């Protein structure tokens, strides 16, 4: 007798006992794992992109004859790469055997610490680097000699003003790039934590 697909479906599911739903407690485990994986992979790629940037900057300054400045900037960029790598490795030391909720909480805490630390670094480090690079670039040029002719108060005011603008710019650029690259992933992480908290309360 010919069996129709409708019959196979109907009879098959009548006898089926394996239609049990996965437990709700496991509902977030894999999803959060995937998000963490995505964040980790994005941060690694993001950090690795500093290497070609360092090489290109070094090449450009060597090409225009500012070797020392090229070395200085390349060292700083590679330094930033190693610093980031160290911070990212610390993320991997989190205890993944912990409960999903605790793991995510700790992960979020570390990410926030890294963000806070990098914001400080951009706010203070970026103006220092740019002003030093500016000084190295224009050293022994007319720009620098006309700057030196200004009175000391005006010089200090100008440098302080520039440092403030650069600091704000550095922080703004960092926040903006973080939002563009990680915004969606971090929002998903927050959503999962909110959901899990909601689930624990209900």
């Amino acid at each position, binding site marked *: 007798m*010919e069996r129709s697909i409708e019959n*196979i479906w109907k*009879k098959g599911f009548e006898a089926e006992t*394996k*239609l*049990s739903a996965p437990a709700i407690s*496991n*509902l977030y485990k894999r999803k959060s794992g995937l998000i963490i994986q995505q964040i980790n992979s994005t941060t690694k790629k993001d950090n690795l992109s500093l290497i070609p940037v360092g090489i290109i900057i070094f090449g450009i300054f060597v090409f225009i004859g500012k070797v020392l400045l090229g070395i200085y900037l390349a060292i700083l960029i590679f330094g930033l790469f190693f610093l980031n790598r160290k911070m990212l490795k610390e993320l991997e030391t989190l205890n993944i055997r912990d409960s999903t909720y605790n793991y995510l909480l700790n992960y979020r805490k570390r990410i926030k610490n890294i963000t806070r630390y990098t914001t400080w670094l951009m706010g203070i480090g970026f103006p220092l680097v740019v002003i030093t690079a500016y000084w190295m670039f224009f050293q022994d040029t007319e720009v620098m000699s006309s700057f030196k002719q200004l009175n000391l108060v005006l010089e200090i005011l100008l440098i302080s003003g520039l440092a403030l603008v650069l600091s704000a710019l550095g922080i703004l650029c960092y926040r903006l790039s973080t939002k563009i690259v990680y915004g969606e992933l971090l929002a998903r992480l927050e959503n999962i934590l909110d959901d899990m908290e909601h689930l624990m309360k209900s």
Partner: protein
Amino acid sequence: MSKDFYTQFILPFAGIIIKICRAYTDTEEDFQDYYQEVCLQIWNSRENFKEESKWSTWIYRISLNVCMALLKKRKRKQVRSSDYIEVQNIPTGENYFQDESLQLLYQAIRQLSELDRAIILLYLEENPYKEIASIIGTTPNNIGVRITRIKKQLKKLLDGKIY
């Protein structure tokens, strides 16, 4: 997601979600992923549910949309990670079902296109053509024609195995 919501609004319809997710996945790991994503999407979009349709229709709609989107995403990834895809290597899936004929039917359904899988699943679940058409976004006549074609295709795929 609240436990109450899961127990009251998802669990009674878990069978629908499981049947659909199984048709779009080959491994237990993928199945768990898809099931989980469907549940979370149902929870996230619960406020968009308008009582013009049945809750079960809503579950079908979300389950199919999520599974088709995830499968497309997976296929794109596979294309990116491999220069060529071995077309003949069709995954057969693990033995999820005790009934051998059902297992074979699922293997055949997995060889259909994403949309055809959706249509035949809705048909086998005894949804009227009108409802299938509204979920898929086409006309009941078109659904009728497609079902005839899909059934022929399935029969060919199952030829000698079941019939």
